Protein backbone atom coordinates (compact mmCIF):
# COMPACT_ATOMS: atom_id res chain seq x y z
CA UNK A 1 0.00 0.00 0.00
CA UNK A 2 1.24 3.42 -0.92
CA UNK A 3 -0.32 5.68 1.67
CA UNK A 4 -2.27 5.43 4.86
CA UNK A 5 -5.93 6.30 4.55
CA UNK A 6 -7.83 4.88 7.49
CA UNK A 7 -11.28 5.59 6.07
CA UNK A 8 -10.34 3.89 2.81
CA UNK A 9 -9.16 0.81 4.65
CA UNK A 10 -12.37 0.64 6.61
CA UNK A 11 -14.35 0.99 3.39
CA UNK A 12 -12.26 -1.71 1.70
CA UNK A 13 -12.90 -4.15 4.54
CA UNK A 14 -16.62 -3.40 4.34
CA UNK A 15 -16.67 -4.12 0.60
CA UNK A 16 -14.79 -7.38 1.09
CA UNK A 17 -16.95 -8.55 3.97
CA UNK A 18 -20.08 -7.90 1.90
CA UNK A 19 -18.44 -9.76 -1.01
CA UNK A 20 -17.53 -12.76 1.12
CA UNK A 21 -21.02 -12.77 2.64
CA UNK A 22 -22.62 -12.84 -0.82
CA UNK A 23 -20.33 -15.66 -1.91
CA UNK A 24 -21.01 -17.69 1.22
CA UNK A 25 -24.76 -16.93 1.37
CA UNK A 26 -26.10 -19.76 -0.87
CA UNK A 27 -24.00 -22.36 0.88
CA UNK A 28 -24.98 -21.05 4.31
CA UNK A 29 -28.64 -21.38 3.34
CA UNK A 30 -27.96 -24.93 2.13
CA UNK A 31 -26.38 -25.83 5.48
CA UNK A 32 -29.30 -24.28 7.37
CA UNK A 33 -31.83 -26.12 5.22
CA UNK A 34 -30.02 -29.43 5.65
CA UNK A 35 -30.42 -29.27 9.43
CA UNK A 36 -34.18 -28.73 9.53
CA UNK A 37 -36.97 -31.19 10.19
CA UNK A 38 -38.92 -32.13 7.02
CA UNK A 39 -42.06 -30.17 7.96
CA UNK A 40 -40.08 -27.05 8.85
CA UNK A 41 -39.42 -26.39 5.16
CA UNK A 42 -43.03 -26.86 4.14
CA UNK A 43 -44.28 -24.22 6.54
CA UNK A 44 -43.49 -21.31 4.26
CA UNK A 45 -40.31 -19.50 5.14
CA UNK A 46 -36.95 -20.94 5.90
CA UNK A 47 -35.46 -20.25 9.34
CA UNK A 48 -32.17 -18.33 9.28
CA UNK A 49 -30.42 -20.40 11.93
CA UNK A 50 -29.45 -24.09 11.74
CA UNK A 51 -31.97 -26.51 13.19
CA UNK A 52 -31.35 -29.58 15.29
CA UNK A 53 -32.00 -32.35 12.75
CA UNK A 54 -28.63 -32.21 11.03
CA UNK A 55 -27.23 -35.55 12.12
CA UNK A 56 -30.48 -37.33 11.35
CA UNK A 57 -30.76 -35.83 7.83
CA UNK A 58 -27.15 -36.48 6.90
CA UNK A 59 -27.29 -40.06 8.21
CA UNK A 60 -30.47 -40.76 6.28
CA UNK A 61 -29.03 -39.29 3.08
CA UNK A 62 -25.73 -41.11 3.50
CA UNK A 63 -27.28 -44.51 4.21
CA UNK A 64 -30.49 -44.73 2.23
CA UNK A 65 -30.98 -41.62 0.11
CA UNK A 66 -34.37 -40.17 -0.71
CA UNK A 67 -36.82 -42.91 0.15
CA UNK A 68 -39.62 -42.08 -2.27
CA UNK A 69 -37.67 -42.87 -5.44
CA UNK A 70 -35.16 -45.54 -6.29
CA UNK A 71 -32.39 -43.01 -5.95
CA UNK A 72 -29.29 -44.58 -4.41
CA UNK A 73 -27.65 -43.60 -1.14
CA UNK A 74 -25.29 -40.64 -1.01
CA UNK A 75 -22.47 -42.97 0.03
CA UNK A 76 -22.77 -44.89 -3.24
CA UNK A 77 -23.14 -41.75 -5.35
CA UNK A 78 -20.12 -40.11 -3.70
CA UNK A 79 -18.12 -43.26 -4.32
CA UNK A 80 -19.16 -43.27 -7.99
CA UNK A 81 -18.16 -39.61 -8.33
CA UNK A 82 -14.84 -40.34 -6.69
CA UNK A 83 -14.06 -43.29 -8.97
CA UNK A 84 -15.03 -41.31 -12.05
CA UNK A 85 -13.01 -38.25 -10.99
CA UNK A 86 -9.93 -40.33 -10.15
CA UNK A 87 -10.14 -42.34 -13.39
CA UNK A 88 -10.42 -39.17 -15.45
CA UNK A 89 -7.60 -37.42 -13.57
CA UNK A 90 -5.12 -40.29 -13.62
CA UNK A 91 -6.00 -41.14 -17.21
CA UNK A 92 -5.51 -37.58 -18.42
CA UNK A 93 -2.19 -37.18 -16.62
CA UNK A 94 -0.90 -40.53 -17.83
CA UNK A 95 -1.65 -40.17 -21.54
CA UNK A 96 -0.68 -36.49 -21.62
CA UNK A 97 2.71 -37.13 -20.03
CA UNK A 98 3.40 -39.89 -22.57
CA UNK A 99 2.37 -37.85 -25.59
CA UNK A 100 4.24 -34.72 -24.46
CA UNK A 101 7.34 -36.89 -23.96
CA UNK A 102 7.00 -38.29 -27.49
CA UNK A 103 6.53 -34.84 -29.03
CA UNK A 104 9.47 -33.20 -27.25
CA UNK A 105 12.07 -35.97 -27.12
CA UNK A 106 11.66 -37.73 -30.47
CA UNK A 107 11.85 -36.77 -34.10
CA UNK A 108 9.48 -38.79 -36.21
CA UNK A 109 7.24 -38.52 -39.24
CA UNK A 110 3.91 -36.72 -38.89
CA UNK A 111 4.95 -35.19 -35.56
CA UNK A 112 3.25 -31.91 -36.40
CA UNK A 113 0.17 -33.76 -37.63
CA UNK A 114 -0.23 -35.53 -34.30
CA UNK A 115 0.36 -32.33 -32.41
CA UNK A 116 -2.48 -30.63 -34.30
CA UNK A 117 -4.70 -33.67 -33.93
CA UNK A 118 -4.38 -33.38 -30.15
CA UNK A 119 -4.84 -29.61 -30.35
CA UNK A 120 -8.16 -30.00 -32.16
CA UNK A 121 -9.76 -31.64 -29.11
CA UNK A 122 -9.72 -28.20 -27.49
CA UNK A 123 -12.28 -27.11 -30.03
CA UNK A 124 -14.66 -30.03 -29.61
CA UNK A 125 -16.20 -29.96 -26.11
CA UNK A 126 -18.71 -32.74 -25.36
CA UNK A 127 -21.54 -30.24 -25.52
CA UNK A 128 -21.19 -29.71 -29.26
CA UNK A 129 -21.09 -33.36 -30.32
CA UNK A 130 -23.50 -34.93 -27.86
CA UNK A 131 -25.42 -37.36 -30.03
CA UNK A 132 -22.69 -38.81 -32.27
CA UNK A 133 -20.44 -39.35 -29.23
CA UNK A 134 -23.28 -41.07 -27.45
CA UNK A 135 -23.71 -43.34 -30.48
CA UNK A 136 -20.03 -44.27 -30.47
CA UNK A 137 -20.12 -45.15 -26.78
CA UNK A 138 -23.31 -47.13 -27.27
CA UNK A 139 -21.80 -49.03 -30.24
CA UNK A 140 -18.78 -49.94 -28.13
CA UNK A 141 -21.26 -51.13 -25.43
CA UNK A 142 -19.68 -48.86 -22.85
CA UNK A 143 -22.98 -47.45 -21.55
CA UNK A 144 -23.47 -47.88 -17.81
CA UNK A 145 -19.84 -48.53 -16.98
CA UNK A 146 -16.98 -46.64 -15.42
CA UNK A 147 -15.03 -47.09 -18.64
CA UNK A 148 -17.76 -45.25 -20.54
CA UNK A 149 -17.84 -42.54 -17.89
CA UNK A 150 -14.13 -41.86 -17.92
CA UNK A 151 -12.27 -42.98 -21.06
CA UNK A 152 -13.97 -40.64 -23.57
CA UNK A 153 -13.06 -37.68 -21.34
CA UNK A 154 -9.38 -38.39 -20.77
CA UNK A 155 -7.96 -36.93 -23.97
CA UNK A 156 -6.45 -33.62 -22.91
CA UNK A 157 -4.89 -30.97 -25.09
CA UNK A 158 -4.28 -28.58 -22.18
CA UNK A 159 -2.36 -31.11 -20.10
CA UNK A 160 -0.31 -32.18 -23.14
CA UNK A 161 0.59 -28.54 -23.88
CA UNK A 162 1.49 -27.83 -20.29
CA UNK A 163 3.81 -30.81 -20.07
CA UNK A 164 5.31 -29.98 -23.47
CA UNK A 165 5.99 -26.42 -22.26
CA UNK A 166 7.57 -27.77 -19.10
CA UNK A 167 9.70 -30.41 -20.84
CA UNK A 168 11.09 -27.71 -23.14
CA UNK A 169 12.47 -25.91 -20.09
CA UNK A 170 14.29 -29.00 -18.79
CA UNK A 171 18.02 -28.40 -19.47
CA UNK A 172 19.51 -30.22 -22.47
CA UNK A 173 22.38 -31.40 -20.26
CA UNK A 174 20.02 -33.69 -18.38
CA UNK A 175 19.38 -35.69 -21.50
CA UNK A 176 23.03 -35.64 -22.58
CA UNK A 177 24.20 -36.84 -19.18
CA UNK A 178 21.57 -39.55 -19.10
CA UNK A 179 22.53 -40.78 -22.55
CA UNK A 180 26.23 -40.80 -21.73
CA UNK A 181 25.36 -42.98 -18.77
CA UNK A 182 23.50 -45.29 -21.12
CA UNK A 183 19.90 -44.57 -20.10
CA UNK A 184 17.24 -45.53 -22.61
CA UNK A 185 14.20 -43.34 -23.30
CA UNK A 186 11.90 -44.99 -20.76
CA UNK A 187 14.55 -44.95 -18.03
CA UNK A 188 15.09 -41.24 -18.69
CA UNK A 189 11.34 -40.64 -18.58
CA UNK A 190 10.80 -42.56 -15.36
CA UNK A 191 13.92 -41.59 -13.40
CA UNK A 192 14.52 -38.01 -14.51
CA UNK A 193 11.53 -36.43 -16.22
CA UNK A 194 8.80 -37.67 -13.88
CA UNK A 195 10.52 -36.60 -10.64
CA UNK A 196 11.15 -33.15 -12.17
CA UNK A 197 7.48 -32.79 -13.11
CA UNK A 198 6.03 -33.56 -9.68
CA UNK A 199 4.84 -30.01 -8.96
CA UNK A 200 3.23 -29.65 -12.37
CA UNK A 201 1.56 -33.03 -12.02
CA UNK A 202 0.21 -32.10 -8.60
CA UNK A 203 -1.11 -28.74 -9.82
CA UNK A 204 -2.86 -30.36 -12.77
CA UNK A 205 -4.17 -33.10 -10.53
CA UNK A 206 -6.09 -30.55 -8.47
CA UNK A 207 -7.67 -28.92 -11.53
CA UNK A 208 -8.48 -32.20 -13.25
CA UNK A 209 -9.96 -33.74 -10.13
CA UNK A 210 -12.39 -30.83 -9.82
CA UNK A 211 -13.16 -31.12 -13.53
CA UNK A 212 -13.85 -34.84 -13.20
CA UNK A 213 -15.88 -34.56 -10.01
CA UNK A 214 -18.13 -31.88 -11.51
CA UNK A 215 -18.96 -33.74 -14.74
CA UNK A 216 -22.66 -33.50 -15.40
CA UNK A 217 -23.80 -33.80 -19.00
CA UNK A 218 -21.66 -36.85 -19.72
CA UNK A 219 -22.86 -39.09 -16.85
CA UNK A 220 -26.39 -37.92 -17.60
CA UNK A 221 -26.12 -39.38 -21.10
CA UNK A 222 -24.05 -42.46 -20.41
CA UNK A 223 -25.65 -43.91 -17.29
CA UNK A 224 -29.24 -44.93 -16.74
CA UNK A 225 -28.50 -47.61 -14.16
CA UNK A 226 -28.92 -46.12 -10.62
CA UNK A 227 -25.82 -48.05 -9.51
CA UNK A 228 -23.69 -45.66 -11.58
CA UNK A 229 -25.41 -42.42 -10.56
CA UNK A 230 -22.89 -39.77 -9.61
CA UNK A 231 -23.69 -37.31 -6.86
CA UNK A 232 -24.12 -34.16 -8.99
CA UNK A 233 -26.49 -35.97 -11.30
CA UNK A 234 -28.31 -37.68 -8.42
CA UNK A 235 -29.09 -34.29 -6.88
CA UNK A 236 -30.64 -33.10 -10.11
CA UNK A 237 -32.86 -36.22 -10.16
CA UNK A 238 -33.99 -35.56 -6.60
CA UNK A 239 -34.90 -31.94 -7.32
CA UNK A 240 -37.02 -32.83 -10.33
CA UNK A 241 -39.43 -34.91 -8.26
CA UNK A 242 -43.00 -33.89 -7.55
CA UNK A 243 -42.35 -32.88 -3.92
CA UNK A 244 -38.61 -32.37 -3.54
CA UNK A 245 -37.39 -33.19 -0.04
CA UNK A 246 -35.25 -30.12 0.33
CA UNK A 247 -33.77 -30.98 3.74
CA UNK A 248 -32.26 -34.17 2.29
CA UNK A 249 -31.32 -32.60 -1.05
CA UNK A 250 -29.43 -29.82 0.71
CA UNK A 251 -27.61 -32.38 2.83
CA UNK A 252 -26.58 -34.11 -0.41
CA UNK A 253 -25.52 -30.75 -1.92
CA UNK A 254 -23.25 -30.07 1.05
CA UNK A 255 -21.72 -33.54 0.82
CA UNK A 256 -21.22 -33.19 -2.96
CA UNK A 257 -19.55 -29.80 -2.65
CA UNK A 258 -17.29 -30.72 0.24
CA UNK A 259 -14.59 -32.88 -1.45
CA UNK A 260 -13.64 -30.42 -4.24
CA UNK A 261 -13.91 -27.41 -1.90
CA UNK A 262 -11.59 -29.12 0.58
CA UNK A 263 -9.16 -29.88 -2.22
CA UNK A 264 -9.05 -26.16 -3.10
CA UNK A 265 -8.76 -24.98 0.48
CA UNK A 266 -5.94 -27.32 1.42
CA UNK A 267 -4.05 -27.15 -1.87
CA UNK A 268 -4.68 -23.52 -2.68
CA UNK A 269 -1.19 -22.82 -3.96
CA UNK A 270 -1.21 -25.81 -6.31
CA UNK A 271 -4.73 -24.92 -7.39
CA UNK A 272 -3.77 -21.35 -8.33
CA UNK A 273 -0.68 -22.62 -10.15
CA UNK A 274 -2.69 -25.21 -12.05
CA UNK A 275 -5.42 -22.75 -12.95
CA UNK A 276 -3.14 -19.98 -14.20
CA UNK A 277 -0.81 -22.32 -16.09
CA UNK A 278 -3.42 -24.37 -17.90
CA UNK A 279 -4.99 -21.20 -19.27
CA UNK A 280 -1.77 -19.72 -20.59
Amino acid at each position, binding site marked *: *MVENRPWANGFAHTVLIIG*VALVVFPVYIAIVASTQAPDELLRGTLPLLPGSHGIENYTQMWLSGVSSTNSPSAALMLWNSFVMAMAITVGKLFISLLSAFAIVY*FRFRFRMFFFWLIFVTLMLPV*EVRIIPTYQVVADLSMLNSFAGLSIPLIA*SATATFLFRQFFMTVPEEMLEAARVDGAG*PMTFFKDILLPLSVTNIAALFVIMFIYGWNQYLWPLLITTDPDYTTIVMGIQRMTSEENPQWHLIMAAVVMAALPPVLVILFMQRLFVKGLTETEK
Partner: protein
Amino acid sequence: MQTKRMTFPGRWLPFALLAPQVIITLIFFIWPAGQALYQSLLREDAFGLRSTFVGLENFARLFRDGSYLNSLSVTVVFAVGTTLLSMSVALLLASTVNRMLRSRSTYTTLLVWPYAIAPALAGVLWWFIFNPSIGIVPYMLEMVGYQWNHRNSGSDAMLLVILAAAWKQVSYNFLFFLAGMQSIPQSLIEAAAIDGASPIKRFWTIVFPLLSPTTFFLMVVNVVYAMFDTFGIIHATTEGGPAQATNILVYKVYADGFVGLNLGSSAAQSVILMVIVVALTVIQFRFIERRVNY
Protein backbone atom coordinates in the same frame (compact mmCIF):
# COMPACT_ATOMS: atom_id res chain seq x y z
CA MET B 1 7.83 -26.41 -33.60
CA GLN B 2 11.06 -27.38 -32.00
CA THR B 3 12.22 -30.51 -30.20
CA LYS B 4 15.25 -30.87 -28.01
CA ARG B 5 18.58 -30.45 -29.83
CA MET B 6 19.39 -34.03 -28.99
CA THR B 7 16.61 -36.58 -29.26
CA PHE B 8 16.19 -40.28 -28.71
CA PRO B 9 16.39 -42.58 -31.69
CA GLY B 10 13.40 -44.85 -32.15
CA ARG B 11 11.10 -45.80 -34.98
CA TRP B 12 8.11 -47.18 -33.15
CA LEU B 13 8.43 -45.95 -29.60
CA PRO B 14 7.14 -42.40 -30.22
CA PHE B 15 4.07 -43.79 -31.99
CA ALA B 16 3.45 -46.19 -29.12
CA LEU B 17 3.72 -43.31 -26.65
CA LEU B 18 1.26 -41.20 -28.63
CA ALA B 19 -1.11 -44.07 -29.32
CA PRO B 20 -3.44 -43.82 -26.26
CA GLN B 21 -4.06 -40.09 -26.68
CA VAL B 22 -4.44 -40.32 -30.46
CA ILE B 23 -6.77 -43.33 -30.39
CA ILE B 24 -9.08 -41.70 -27.85
CA THR B 25 -9.03 -38.46 -29.84
CA LEU B 26 -9.91 -40.24 -33.06
CA ILE B 27 -12.67 -42.42 -31.62
CA PHE B 28 -14.36 -39.97 -29.27
CA PHE B 29 -13.58 -36.58 -30.82
CA ILE B 30 -12.79 -36.65 -34.53
CA TRP B 31 -15.18 -39.43 -35.57
CA PRO B 32 -18.23 -37.97 -33.72
CA ALA B 33 -17.43 -34.50 -35.05
CA GLY B 34 -17.31 -35.95 -38.56
CA GLN B 35 -20.60 -37.72 -37.92
CA ALA B 36 -22.17 -34.46 -36.78
CA LEU B 37 -20.97 -32.78 -39.98
CA TYR B 38 -22.34 -35.64 -42.07
CA GLN B 39 -25.69 -35.86 -40.28
CA SER B 40 -26.17 -32.13 -40.54
CA LEU B 41 -26.55 -32.68 -44.29
CA LEU B 42 -29.18 -35.43 -43.93
CA ARG B 43 -32.81 -35.49 -42.99
CA GLU B 44 -34.42 -38.53 -41.36
CA ASP B 45 -38.05 -39.38 -41.91
CA ALA B 46 -40.46 -39.43 -38.97
CA PHE B 47 -39.71 -43.06 -38.08
CA GLY B 48 -35.94 -42.82 -38.38
CA LEU B 49 -35.94 -45.50 -41.08
CA ARG B 50 -34.61 -43.61 -44.04
CA SER B 51 -32.47 -40.57 -44.38
CA THR B 52 -32.07 -38.45 -47.46
CA PHE B 53 -29.36 -36.03 -48.44
CA VAL B 54 -30.68 -32.50 -48.17
CA GLY B 55 -27.54 -30.39 -48.49
CA LEU B 56 -27.62 -27.24 -46.41
CA GLU B 57 -31.37 -27.43 -45.93
CA ASN B 58 -31.04 -28.12 -42.17
CA PHE B 59 -29.02 -24.93 -41.73
CA ALA B 60 -31.42 -22.89 -43.83
CA ARG B 61 -34.32 -24.19 -41.77
CA LEU B 62 -32.58 -23.28 -38.52
CA PHE B 63 -32.14 -19.69 -39.54
CA ARG B 64 -35.79 -19.48 -40.52
CA ASP B 65 -36.86 -21.12 -37.28
CA GLY B 66 -38.16 -18.63 -34.72
CA SER B 67 -37.21 -20.84 -31.76
CA TYR B 68 -33.59 -21.10 -32.94
CA LEU B 69 -33.29 -17.36 -33.44
CA ASN B 70 -34.82 -16.93 -30.00
CA SER B 71 -32.25 -19.31 -28.59
CA LEU B 72 -29.46 -17.28 -30.23
CA SER B 73 -30.64 -14.05 -28.65
CA VAL B 74 -31.20 -15.75 -25.28
CA THR B 75 -27.61 -17.02 -25.43
CA VAL B 76 -26.30 -13.53 -26.18
CA VAL B 77 -28.21 -12.02 -23.25
CA PHE B 78 -27.10 -14.82 -20.94
CA ALA B 79 -23.44 -14.71 -21.99
CA VAL B 80 -23.19 -10.91 -21.83
CA GLY B 81 -25.03 -10.77 -18.51
CA THR B 82 -22.93 -13.48 -16.89
CA THR B 83 -19.66 -12.05 -18.20
CA LEU B 84 -20.41 -8.47 -17.16
CA LEU B 85 -21.71 -9.38 -13.73
CA SER B 86 -19.00 -11.85 -12.76
CA MET B 87 -16.15 -9.74 -14.17
CA SER B 88 -17.23 -6.47 -12.59
CA VAL B 89 -17.76 -8.05 -9.17
CA ALA B 90 -14.43 -9.87 -9.48
CA LEU B 91 -12.62 -6.67 -10.51
CA LEU B 92 -14.05 -4.77 -7.55
CA LEU B 93 -13.08 -7.53 -5.11
CA ALA B 94 -9.62 -8.04 -6.61
CA SER B 95 -8.72 -4.35 -6.54
CA THR B 96 -9.90 -4.15 -2.94
CA VAL B 97 -8.03 -7.27 -1.85
CA ASN B 98 -4.93 -5.94 -3.59
CA ARG B 99 -4.87 -2.98 -1.14
CA MET B 100 -4.61 -5.32 1.81
CA LEU B 101 -1.34 -6.50 3.23
CA ARG B 102 -1.99 -8.81 6.14
CA SER B 103 -5.50 -9.97 5.30
CA ARG B 104 -4.93 -10.57 1.58
CA SER B 105 -4.49 -14.33 1.71
CA THR B 106 -7.41 -14.79 4.12
CA TYR B 107 -9.79 -12.94 1.84
CA THR B 108 -8.44 -14.79 -1.20
CA THR B 109 -9.13 -18.14 0.45
CA LEU B 110 -12.65 -17.03 1.38
CA LEU B 111 -13.38 -15.94 -2.18
CA VAL B 112 -11.92 -18.70 -4.38
CA TRP B 113 -13.70 -21.87 -3.24
CA PRO B 114 -16.91 -21.50 -5.33
CA TYR B 115 -14.76 -22.54 -8.29
CA ALA B 116 -15.03 -26.08 -6.94
CA ILE B 117 -18.84 -26.18 -7.00
CA ALA B 118 -20.34 -27.93 -10.03
CA PRO B 119 -22.45 -25.65 -12.25
CA ALA B 120 -25.46 -27.89 -11.68
CA LEU B 121 -25.07 -27.55 -7.91
CA ALA B 122 -24.71 -23.76 -8.20
CA GLY B 123 -27.99 -23.85 -10.11
CA VAL B 124 -29.71 -25.96 -7.45
CA LEU B 125 -28.45 -23.66 -4.65
CA TRP B 126 -29.80 -20.51 -6.28
CA TRP B 127 -32.98 -22.26 -7.37
CA PHE B 128 -33.59 -23.11 -3.74
CA ILE B 129 -32.91 -19.59 -2.45
CA PHE B 130 -35.25 -18.14 -5.05
CA ASN B 131 -37.89 -20.88 -4.70
CA PRO B 132 -41.22 -18.98 -4.91
CA SER B 133 -42.86 -20.92 -2.09
CA ILE B 134 -40.06 -21.53 0.45
CA GLY B 135 -37.13 -19.44 -0.76
CA ILE B 136 -35.77 -16.61 1.30
CA VAL B 137 -35.24 -14.02 -1.43
CA PRO B 138 -38.81 -14.05 -2.82
CA TYR B 139 -39.98 -13.63 0.77
CA MET B 140 -37.86 -10.49 1.12
CA LEU B 141 -38.82 -9.23 -2.33
CA GLU B 142 -42.47 -9.59 -1.45
CA MET B 143 -41.98 -7.18 1.44
CA VAL B 144 -40.88 -4.51 -1.04
CA GLY B 145 -43.78 -5.39 -3.28
CA TYR B 146 -42.22 -7.59 -5.98
CA GLN B 147 -43.77 -10.94 -6.82
CA TRP B 148 -40.83 -13.15 -7.82
CA ASN B 149 -41.74 -16.18 -9.86
CA HIS B 150 -39.19 -17.78 -12.16
CA ARG B 151 -41.73 -20.43 -13.13
CA ASN B 152 -43.86 -17.91 -15.03
CA SER B 153 -41.67 -14.93 -15.67
CA GLY B 154 -39.00 -15.31 -18.32
CA SER B 155 -36.99 -12.36 -17.07
CA ASP B 156 -36.97 -13.69 -13.49
CA ALA B 157 -35.74 -17.06 -14.76
CA MET B 158 -33.02 -15.41 -16.84
CA LEU B 159 -31.88 -13.32 -13.88
CA LEU B 160 -31.73 -16.45 -11.75
CA VAL B 161 -29.52 -18.44 -14.13
CA ILE B 162 -27.26 -15.42 -14.70
CA LEU B 163 -26.83 -15.03 -10.93
CA ALA B 164 -26.01 -18.71 -10.51
CA ALA B 165 -23.56 -18.75 -13.43
CA ALA B 166 -21.86 -15.50 -12.37
CA TRP B 167 -21.61 -16.55 -8.71
CA LYS B 168 -19.60 -19.61 -9.65
CA GLN B 169 -17.34 -17.72 -12.06
CA VAL B 170 -16.42 -14.78 -9.78
CA SER B 171 -13.66 -16.77 -8.06
CA TYR B 172 -11.95 -17.59 -11.36
CA ASN B 173 -12.02 -13.99 -12.59
CA PHE B 174 -10.92 -12.77 -9.17
CA LEU B 175 -7.77 -14.93 -9.23
CA PHE B 176 -6.76 -13.73 -12.70
CA PHE B 177 -7.44 -10.06 -11.93
CA LEU B 178 -5.46 -10.32 -8.71
CA ALA B 179 -2.53 -11.96 -10.50
CA GLY B 180 -2.72 -9.24 -13.17
CA MET B 181 -2.66 -6.48 -10.58
CA GLN B 182 0.26 -7.96 -8.75
CA SER B 183 2.34 -7.90 -11.89
CA ILE B 184 1.86 -4.12 -12.27
CA PRO B 185 5.05 -2.38 -11.05
CA GLN B 186 4.50 -0.77 -7.67
CA SER B 187 6.69 2.19 -8.69
CA LEU B 188 4.09 3.42 -11.18
CA ILE B 189 1.45 3.56 -8.50
CA GLU B 190 3.78 5.21 -6.01
CA ALA B 191 4.77 7.87 -8.56
CA ALA B 192 1.11 8.67 -9.19
CA ALA B 193 0.44 8.83 -5.46
CA ILE B 194 3.29 11.30 -4.97
CA ASP B 195 1.81 13.44 -7.73
CA GLY B 196 -1.37 13.49 -5.69
CA ALA B 197 -3.62 11.06 -7.61
CA SER B 198 -6.39 9.59 -5.47
CA PRO B 199 -6.84 5.79 -5.27
CA ILE B 200 -9.81 5.95 -7.64
CA LYS B 201 -7.94 8.12 -10.13
CA ARG B 202 -4.94 5.75 -9.91
CA PHE B 203 -7.17 2.78 -10.60
CA TRP B 204 -8.76 4.21 -13.74
CA THR B 205 -5.65 5.82 -15.23
CA ILE B 206 -2.96 3.25 -14.36
CA VAL B 207 -4.25 -0.08 -13.09
CA PHE B 208 -7.23 -0.56 -15.38
CA PRO B 209 -5.39 0.21 -18.67
CA LEU B 210 -2.50 -2.05 -17.67
CA LEU B 211 -4.96 -4.82 -16.89
CA SER B 212 -6.47 -4.74 -20.37
CA PRO B 213 -4.72 -7.95 -21.57
CA THR B 214 -6.13 -9.81 -18.56
CA THR B 215 -9.55 -8.25 -19.09
CA PHE B 216 -9.65 -9.26 -22.71
CA PHE B 217 -8.50 -12.79 -21.96
CA LEU B 218 -11.15 -13.15 -19.25
CA MET B 219 -13.84 -11.84 -21.57
CA VAL B 220 -13.17 -14.66 -24.04
CA VAL B 221 -12.94 -17.28 -21.29
CA ASN B 222 -16.16 -16.07 -19.69
CA VAL B 223 -18.08 -16.11 -22.95
CA VAL B 224 -16.88 -19.69 -23.56
CA TYR B 225 -17.89 -20.59 -20.01
CA ALA B 226 -21.33 -19.04 -20.34
CA MET B 227 -21.96 -20.67 -23.70
CA PHE B 228 -20.73 -24.20 -23.01
CA ASP B 229 -20.09 -24.94 -19.35
CA THR B 230 -23.43 -23.76 -18.04
CA PHE B 231 -25.44 -26.66 -19.42
CA GLY B 232 -25.74 -28.04 -15.88
CA ILE B 233 -27.18 -24.80 -14.51
CA ILE B 234 -29.92 -24.71 -17.13
CA HIS B 235 -30.68 -28.42 -17.01
CA ALA B 236 -30.84 -28.61 -13.22
CA THR B 237 -33.05 -25.55 -12.87
CA THR B 238 -35.20 -23.98 -15.60
CA GLU B 239 -34.78 -26.65 -18.32
CA GLY B 240 -34.87 -23.88 -20.89
CA GLY B 241 -38.20 -22.50 -19.71
CA PRO B 242 -40.46 -20.78 -19.02
CA ALA B 243 -41.54 -20.52 -22.67
CA GLN B 244 -37.95 -20.98 -23.90
CA ALA B 245 -36.77 -17.87 -22.04
CA THR B 246 -33.54 -19.56 -20.90
CA ASN B 247 -33.11 -22.04 -23.77
CA ILE B 248 -29.43 -21.39 -24.56
CA LEU B 249 -27.84 -22.97 -27.65
CA VAL B 250 -26.06 -25.79 -25.82
CA TYR B 251 -29.24 -26.78 -24.04
CA LYS B 252 -31.19 -26.67 -27.29
CA VAL B 253 -28.77 -29.09 -29.00
CA TYR B 254 -29.38 -31.54 -26.19
CA ALA B 255 -33.13 -30.99 -26.01
CA ASP B 256 -33.72 -31.21 -29.77
CA GLY B 257 -31.42 -34.16 -30.33
CA PHE B 258 -31.66 -36.26 -27.20
CA VAL B 259 -35.16 -35.52 -26.05
CA GLY B 260 -36.83 -34.40 -29.30
CA LEU B 261 -34.87 -36.87 -31.48
CA ASN B 262 -34.59 -34.42 -34.34
CA LEU B 263 -31.16 -35.63 -35.42
CA GLY B 264 -30.59 -33.57 -38.55
CA SER B 265 -31.45 -30.29 -36.88
CA SER B 266 -29.47 -31.13 -33.75
CA ALA B 267 -26.42 -32.04 -35.86
CA ALA B 268 -26.67 -28.77 -37.75
CA GLN B 269 -26.82 -26.93 -34.42
CA SER B 270 -23.72 -28.86 -33.28
CA VAL B 271 -21.88 -27.75 -36.39
CA ILE B 272 -22.79 -24.10 -35.76
CA LEU B 273 -21.56 -24.44 -32.17
CA MET B 274 -18.29 -25.97 -33.39
CA VAL B 275 -17.77 -22.98 -35.67
CA ILE B 276 -18.33 -20.68 -32.68
CA VAL B 277 -15.84 -22.61 -30.51
CA VAL B 278 -13.23 -22.58 -33.27
CA ALA B 279 -13.66 -18.81 -33.69
CA LEU B 280 -13.35 -18.19 -29.96
CA THR B 281 -10.29 -20.46 -29.69
CA VAL B 282 -8.59 -18.65 -32.55
CA ILE B 283 -9.28 -15.26 -30.92
CA GLN B 284 -7.92 -16.55 -27.63
CA PHE B 285 -4.72 -17.93 -29.14
CA ARG B 286 -3.97 -14.89 -31.28
CA PHE B 287 -4.33 -12.81 -28.16
CA ILE B 288 -2.00 -15.07 -26.17
CA GLU B 289 0.70 -14.62 -28.81
CA ARG B 290 0.39 -10.90 -28.33
CA ARG B 291 0.47 -11.18 -24.57
CA VAL B 292 3.84 -12.95 -24.67
CA ASN B 293 5.34 -9.92 -26.41
CA TYR B 294 3.50 -7.50 -24.23
